[in-house]
């Protein structure tokens, strides 16, 4: 046996100042590994009997992260034995959340959009007991439907979002244009507003595929999934996509901007004269452009159609696997049902969102005038969303078809037939 085994580590690696035995070394490694593993699990706040973990996606508006932490601390101040650990998740939130929900280490409370498989896999707990008739009647039926699967409510709507076609009033006026009322007028206006360095319209960097994929057919009276049936394979929907192709081919769309449609940069920086965006951006736009901005829902496809927009937003949910289910539900009730001031601060203090409580939406001062008031009215009249049975695989199939129609110039009907067949397969998988 060589005699210099022990000092080997010491002399050759230099910085590993090792004087102990092999057994000590292994013991040290084991302890270190243990510490690391413990660090991966749930951490608890000292002094609290219960620690609830709550996940949010990263909101773009300044001050939102501080706000949710403030709400959580306010709850702990009222209930010292319950601590809330807020986790602010940047990046691809949906994927990170779904992955976390597969494990035992998922958050107790999280925000998201409810899907049927989440219910089937028992990832979300029913919240019906938080909705007595008085509360239930203070939510719009559409918000309730969006958060219900098979008659049970699984999501508590925290904010409603909607889309707006923003336009620069001064540029339309200079071009002698009125705000467009139909898709044909949108196309004509976009062309006329296009100059050397400015495009007429910005619908996102994919040329509006994602932004209008549902809205254009809705504006023609079409739909996608109703009563567990795929219903988009119709001449109406095909006509809507072919009209979108006309817009796409007009050369008036801005493509390749550094930010996408959900941020207002293209409109504010003058890269486009009109932009599809969210109500959430309105404070930013109003600050930059003052009174030189107008907005409306997406115009009707033809005079026989009607304006269309989306009902989006985020819902709070409780992890059905949580060990602290009742505490989590109590906290959510306090946060989004019993504290109108918090909901008002959350919806209107940073970006603009419509408070889901009807009583609050009716009385909220910032939503009573101008573009915001119009958006709330449009949301109530035309806001739509896809049902919880619609999943991302169906979304991919439809997106592929629409891309082929818009960008490859293929006829719409056969593309929709292929997509519908695939969506039917996905739906039957989902319902099995």
């Amino acid at each position, binding site marked *: *046996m060589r005699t210099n085994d022990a000092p080997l580590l010491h002399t050759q690696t230099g910085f590993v100042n090792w004087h102990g035995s092999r057994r000590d070394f292994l013991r040290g490694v084991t302890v270190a590994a243990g510490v690391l593993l413990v660090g991966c699990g749930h951490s608890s706040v000292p002094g609290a009997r219960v620690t609830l973990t709550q996940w949010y996606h990263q909101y773009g508006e300044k001050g939102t992260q501080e706000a949710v932490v403030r709400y959580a601390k306010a709850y702990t101040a009222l209930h010292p034995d319950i601590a809330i650990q807020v986790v602010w998740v940047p990046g*691809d939130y*949906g*994927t990170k959340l*779904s*992955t976390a*929900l*597969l494990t035992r280490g998922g958050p107790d409370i999280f925000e998201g959009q409810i899907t049927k*498989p*989440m219910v*089937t*896999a028992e*990832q979300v707990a029913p919240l019906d007991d938080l909705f007595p008739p008085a509360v239930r009647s203070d939510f719009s039926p559409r918000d309730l439907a969006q958060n219900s699967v098979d008659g049970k409510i699984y999501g508590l709507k925290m904010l409603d979002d909607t889309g707006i076609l923003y336009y620069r009033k001064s540029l339309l006026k200079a071009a002698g244009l009125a705000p467009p009322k139909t898709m044909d007028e949108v196309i004509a206006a976009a062309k006329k507003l296009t100059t050397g*360095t400015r495009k007429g319209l910005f619908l*996102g*960097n*994919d*040329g*509006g*595929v*994602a*932004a209008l*994929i549902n809205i254009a057919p809705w504006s023609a009276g079409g739909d996608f999934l109703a009563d567990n049936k795929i219903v988009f394979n119709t001449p109406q929907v095909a006509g809507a996509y072919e009209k979108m192709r006309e817009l796409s081919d007009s050369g008036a769309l*801005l*493509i*390749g*901007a*550094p930010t*996408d*449609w*959900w941020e207002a940069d293209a409109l504010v920086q003058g*890269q486009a004269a009109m932009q599809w965006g969210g109500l959430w951006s309105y404070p930013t736009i109003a600050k930059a452009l003052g009174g030189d901005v107008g907005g409306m829902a997406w115009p009707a496809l033809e005079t026989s159609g009607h304006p269309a927009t989306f009902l989006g937003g985020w819902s709070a949910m409780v992890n059905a696997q949580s060990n602290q289910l009742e505490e989590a539900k109590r906290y959510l009730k306090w946060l989004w049902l019993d504290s109108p001031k918090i909901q008002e601060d959350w919806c209107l203090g940073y970006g603009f969102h419509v408070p889901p409580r009807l009583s609050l939406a009716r009385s909220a001062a910032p939503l009573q005038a101008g573009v915001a008031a119009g958006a709330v009215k449009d949301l109530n009249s035309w806001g739509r969303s896809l049902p919880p049975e619609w*999943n*991302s*695989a169906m*979304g*991919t*199939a439809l*997106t*592929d078809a*629409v*891309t*082929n129609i818009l*960008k*490859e*110039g293929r006829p719409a009907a056969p593309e929709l037939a*292929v997509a519908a067949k*695939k969506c039917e*397969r996905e739906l039957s*998988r*989902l319902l*099995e």
Partner: protein
Amino acid sequence: MPILQKSQADRSATFAFWAFVSPALLGLTVFTLVPIVWGFLLSLSHAQNTIHPGHFIGFRNYADLLTDEAFLKSLVTIVVFAVFIVPLTFAVSLGLALLVNKVGWGRSFFRTVFFIPSAVSYVVASLIWKVSLFNGLPFGFVNHLIGLFGVHPVAWIGTAHPPWYWLVLVTVRLWLQVGFFMIIFLAGLQEIPKSLYEAASVDGAGPGWPVFRYITLPQLKATSVSVLLLNLIAAFQAFDEFYNILGGSGASIGNASLARPPLVYLYSLALSNQDFGRGAAGGFILTALIFAVTLLQGRIFGFGGSEK
């Protein structure tokens, strides 16, 4: 007693062997072997929003994918991508290696300069390519350059006709990986005995094409084959630049439909859609494909055979 001493030494050696091998073996088991077996079981299951195999459905996931136009199209996409990127990387990295090998002064400087991009993350590079170099605005870097020649701004990413996005996708990978393969070629070049070139010179072969064709290239055979293999496998595994430049999930997924490699499709199927059964099946199909192409390539170029 010598025998006892020997067996003590044996035991000690055995202990040392396991002490050194077991961490790697443990890692391999936990992070590679178990996931492979688990993944295979998942691929035979209907695993929606769960990673627990159990609801076995035979090979239906495989059948579903092999009749899914979008998945088949993604396989075509990746072959097209490989057809562009593999020969291009090969030619450019070999060319650079020859040039760098030639310079007497500052060789290590150039070697480092060309190698540095390999240290850049694919995500970061993709975002730079997308947002600053190839954005569609008049002040985007490339649009500004072509603007100097009076060419109108081009929307590089997002149109199908012409498919400029391929230029963006291919150049970013080229920039990122050429330096690495250049280093491999440089090592290969430095292994070629000088005496061969001296002998060629004595026989009257001047510097230039004949020497490259009859000495350098054949001597680089082993290096070339490994560069091609690594390159091809990397191309088939492409994900980052497609996901970050064209988009893979989230609200603006419209561009992803233009060119979607299998890994992006499987990522959205398994992670966005939470269908881990089909996701796992797709992983095995892709592995089989890479395996088959690698074997075929090995057969054509004689990789692994004895040097003649």
